[in-house]
């Protein structure tokens, strides 16, 4: 833990050179991520005992929190809050594209829509894994960032829709046959296992636990990355912004220590909670 970019930064600040920070995520995006973290953990915590209700820990958990009624209440509450956050995000993107004509959100380096560079980056990265080529230079969003984004997007749409179908079955069967509710539960549960499995392993590793970022990348919590991190992680974007002169408009003071510690605490708890749930899931999945 004494190696990696953070060391360079600390050394630089010790040497008296100012550490430059640049905004990567807006306050709204940070809050959105925070809401997703909390509601996702809430949904996973209350959903796993339902999906694996025959596991020993599920019954104990249900008993400890006051029974199935409590579990379902918090599951639905988390789902409703997450749905509002999801729809807010979609509405915001639509507003920015349609009204404010920010077409960069639909196509280009600032868009989450995959483009050719993502595929070439992916294959280049595979080559780098096997010492067959240099590490590719990523833009604002690397291909795994987009996978994370679309995995969560797709997951929320599918799990949300199937969940609401089971929440309001009498309403939904006006449009779909009741037999689809059988499929809704199947998809809801399996997709949820995929989401939990993906977030608590792949996303945690890609973003936080991999050696370069270990133990945690604070960017989504503080909204800022250091110049060093910016250059290493998003060199294409950095160079483009430096050339166009936009870079300095993103300059920001270093995040205060309380914010960093708060991020470490919240993020750390989320990671630990996720890994505990992942362990229970794996145990129950094997015994299922």
């Amino acid at each position, binding site marked *: 833990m004494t190696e990696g970019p953070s060391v360079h930064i600390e050394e630089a600040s010790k040497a008296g050179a100012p550490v430059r920070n640049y905004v990567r995520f807006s306050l709204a995006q940070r809050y959105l991520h925070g809401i997703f973290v909390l509601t996702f953990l809430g949904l996973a915590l209350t959903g796993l005992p339902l999906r694996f*209700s025959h596991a020993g820990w*599920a019954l104990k958990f249900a008993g400890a929190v006051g029974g199935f009624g409590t579990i379902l209440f918090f599951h639905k509450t988390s789902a409703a809050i997450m749905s509002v956050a999801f729809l807010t995000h979609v509405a915001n993107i639509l507003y920015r594209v349609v009204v404010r004509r920010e077409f960069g959100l639909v196509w280009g380096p600032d868009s989450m829509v995959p483009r050719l560079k993502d595929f070439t980056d992916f294959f280049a990265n595979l080559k780098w894994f096997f010492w067959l080529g240099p590490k590719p230079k990523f833009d604002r969003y690397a291909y795994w960032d987009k996978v994370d984004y679309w995995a969560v997007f797709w997951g929320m749409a599918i799990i949300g829709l199937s969940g609401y179908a089971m929440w309001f079955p009498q309403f939904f*069967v006006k449009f779909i046959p009741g037999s689809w509710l*059988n499929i809704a539960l*199947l998809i809801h549960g*399996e997709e949820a296992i995929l989401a939990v499995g993906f977030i608590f392993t792949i996303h945690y590793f890609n973003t936080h636990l*991999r050696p370069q970022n270990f133990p945690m990348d604070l960017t989504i919590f503080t909204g800022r990355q250091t110049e060093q991190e910016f250059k290493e992680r998003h060199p294409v974007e950095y160079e483009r912004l430096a050339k166009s002169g936009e870079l300095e408009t993103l300059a920001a003071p270093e995040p205060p220590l309380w914010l960093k510690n708060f991020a470490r605490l919240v993020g750390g708890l989320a990671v630990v909670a996720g890994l505990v749930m992942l362990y229970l899931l794996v145990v129950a999945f094997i015994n299922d």
Partner: protein
Amino acid sequence: MKWGAPILVALGLSMMGQAAATDCLSCHQDNGTSAKASVHGSLSCTSCHTTIHEYPHPQTATKVNCGSCHEGNSHDISGSVHASVGVQPCLNCHGAAHSILPASDPKSTIYPSNLPATCGNCHGNAQIARQAGLKEVYSPYIDSIHGAALTKDGLLVAASCSSCHGSHKILSKTNKASRTYYANVPATCGTCHAGPLRDYTAGIHGQMLESGVDSAPVCSSCHTAHQISSVEKTSWKMKTTATCGGCHKDELTTYHDTFHAQVSALGYVEVARCWDCHGSHAILPASDPNSKISASNRVATCAKCHTGASASFATYDPHADSHDQKRYPALHYSAIFMNLLLAGVLGFFALHTILWFLRSRFDRKGESHD
């Protein structure tokens, strides 16, 4: 016939006067006092101790034969499971010889609320029960809905031992004439529970029993014999699914994968269990128009919980089986798709992550040597 003997004895007493009884009491005062208050208070000592005629009498008195008056009961006992119990089988249940009380007396050993404890003298003793090849049934019974109602609440119509087993003519449950022989159980329980008996007889389980199917469940198959619980109790409701599933194994498996079962497993009872949809006593196959799950009744059955359920709603299958490709093709292929998606996505990114991790480790080592 039944009253013949006492009448004769009474006649004899009135002819002999009270002298004979008074003679006995000069030595056996205790016995005499309690006997006066007993159901046999109007009899003389010699009515039972028939071999004693004069004083002094022989030291060894012959055994009293209750059957000389209670002929029918004596006959029943000799043909029952208790035929070989003890020297004086009557007294095991009816108490001390000189203080036997009528069954209607609350102090009687066979007064309904006292009877379980009386039978429990032997059947509540694990060792004695084991010697007879039986289970100790007193403690399960006493906590059951019958036992608690009778002994705690004093509800005298609640079933005590004799309500189901009879009193003098108790036969082994393997004996076809026994009230507890499995095929006779519905009739035995039905002496009190006439409604459930009527429904059961009309239902598929009753029809099976009627047509001689050995595996047909009777009352005790689901409710147990002695440990019968109130069906309103959560502990009972939590057990019923496994009880039905004991025979209906496939249905239990397919129910297991549904939301109803998941919720139910977490201890929530307000959710559809077997009998919420199928009924309990009058269970009928779906093909029967009177069945709760027949095409014409299904919507109403769902609507018991799901207010406003429609015909479309009722096409939900509470036993859908994703492994059954023929009956549930959409569900089956959805399951395959989801499994492939899960394995594909997680497998792909697990590999990606491992490769990334290994490469990153190497780079960091490289850096530290700079």
